[in-house]
């Protein structure tokens, strides 16, 4: 994680100093962007979420405890924004697993159909992608960070501001739902 900014900068930020906010933005934007990107997985969506996250941070600056880590606080805000974005995406664009007519255009891009693998791999990737996109956003985030990004549960718990036990139970539900969905479409391997 990024080095912590000095106390004076944080104090100025909490008092609404725009220059201090810009300094913090510039210091943390890359790190926050990379974090959001790990969740939403689409650069354009990650940029929008980054702006929203810093906007929420600026609006909620009075609640920031300057004796604690700004980076960790920012990461929690960014995670919430990313979850909200997944929810919004789900409301507007998500299509159910059974809907053959539409492929969910999504925050998750598909990798299927690598050279020499033929059309079956496209279909397989599509089924997995659909199953993943059908998870509720809170489970999807945990599954992304734990199963795809392979982050430690403690780090995920900190980013989501929930106990590690809750992360475990969400991960359990996510894997169970994924297995169910994939079995339903005939993927037993």
């Amino acid at each position, binding site marked *: 994680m990024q080095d912590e900014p000095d106390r004076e900068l944080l104090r100025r930020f909490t008092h609404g100093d725009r220059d201090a906010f810009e300094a913090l933005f510039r210091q943390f934007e890359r790190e926050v962007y990379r974090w959001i990107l790990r969740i939403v997985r689409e650069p354009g969506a990650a940029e929008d979420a980054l702006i929203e996250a810093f906007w929420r941070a600026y609006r909620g600056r009075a609640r920031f405890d300057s004796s604690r880590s700004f980076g960790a606080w920012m990461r929690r805000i960014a995670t919430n924004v990313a979850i909200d974005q997944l929810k919004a995406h789900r409301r507007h664009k998500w299509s159910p697993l059974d809907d053959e007519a539409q492929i969910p255009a999504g925050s998750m891009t598909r990798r299927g159909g690598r050279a020499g693998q033929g059309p079956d791999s496209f279909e397989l990737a599509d089924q997995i*992608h659909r199953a993943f996109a059908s998870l509720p956003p809170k489970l999807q985030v945990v*599954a992304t960070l734990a199963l795809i990004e392979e982050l430690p549960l403690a780090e995920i718990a900190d980013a989501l501001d929930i106990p590690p036990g809750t992360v475990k139970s969400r991960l359990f539900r996510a894997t169970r739902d*994924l297995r169910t969905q*994939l079995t339903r479409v005939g993927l037993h391997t």
Partner: protein
Amino acid sequence: MTDERLKELLRGAISPPDAEELRRDLWPQMAARLEERPRWSYIDLGLAAAAAVALAVFPEWLWLLAYHL
């Protein structure tokens, strides 16, 4: 299906993000957002409408409302 197999399938199907780094300076966009006038949400509008209706029906509540503001 084991957890490892599930992970393998997910990693095979869901690609890593295209661009790991920011492609442009986002501060101008951020600064523009800070300059925006605060927008009223539907909840704000609903509450304002409810307060206006309540005051029209029960004008004596004005003092109660003023006390809470």
